[in-house]
């Protein structure tokens, strides 16, 4: 029985190889590094500017802080600051 089991597990191992660990390493690295690169490309003032912009908007409309997306995109020769704010529905 044990022998059969052993042979069976070796066969399944052979045909359905478990994911190689190097492949997993590469995928995890690609994700974390692209994340860290994006963050390091942000100028230092971005965080405080973002907060001040939100404060100004909040003076006029009640906004949900989670409904705000700020993104900085680098393009050739210039950077684009994209503010995405979902305003609450007017009553």
């Amino acid at each position: 029985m044990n022998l059969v089991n052993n042979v069976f597990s070796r066969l399944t191992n052979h045909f359905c190889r478990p994911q190689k660990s190097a492949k997993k390493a590469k995928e995890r690295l690609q994700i974390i590094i692209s994340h860290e690169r994006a963050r390091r490309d942000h100028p230092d003032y971005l965080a405080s500017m973002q907060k001040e912009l939100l404060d100004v908007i909040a003076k006029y409309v009640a906004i949900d802080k989670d409904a705000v997306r700020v993104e900085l995109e680098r393009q050739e020769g210039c950077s684009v600051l994209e503010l995405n704010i979902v305003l609450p529905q007017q009553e």
Partner: protein
Amino acid sequence: MTKIIVVTSGKGGVGKTTTSASFAVGLANRGFKTAVIDFDIGLRNLDLIMGCERRVVYDFVNVIRGEANLNQALIRDKHNKELYILPASQTRDKDALTLEGVGTVLDELRKTFDYIVCDSPAGIERGAQLAMYYADSAIVVTNPEVSSVRDSDRMLGLLSSKTKRAEEGNGKITEHLLLTRYSPKRVSKGEMLSLEDVNEILAIPLLGVIPESPAVLKASNSGVPVIVDSESDAGQAYADAVARYLGEEVPLRFLEEKSNWLKRIFSFKEKEVV
């Protein structure tokens, strides 16, 4: 024009000192007047790897503090008269190196040397940043392993922002990837990141691949940089990397598992059985 090369990595223990020593010997063997500086204040080790530990009298910090002049601190290599070593101090004062002090010493060295190789300490703090600040080019030493690759990427970020060239907008530092402790056997088994993987992630020009090799320990045991062991795989791989640094086109070697015909027959049989 003198070129200042920093050997850096972020992560510790990946092979910076091994690389600095072999690179400096390689450049000197090509006839360039070369100085190699140990920036690892408090943890002096380059002297051991270069085999000159018993000849250290004055060090880098002594020179910066004006307690010795540069000629008193520089140690001439036993085998190559074009090569000089500037050892690190063993002081525990981490602030012993100053930006101005390092700049002054490098300017003095520029007058006589063609190449200055800076062996960076590990980490991303002050010591590592001082080692890279004045560099013209960087050798980023990376092991095929997640934390080393990630740290290398962070070093690339620092190299493009926290250096004199970056601050003055004076042209980018040239970046070179040196993949070390590479084990083709483990790569072929899918256990280790491959050269292609690391290349794709870091995306900087490749200077070379140094195989994991027992010759490296043998070399450090005897205080002779591994490049001198021209019979060894690692020694040859370092010589190739130096040649590429100097602009020569040299094909990559040691990327395949050493092929052993006996082993090949056995692995063939194994497949047939399954």
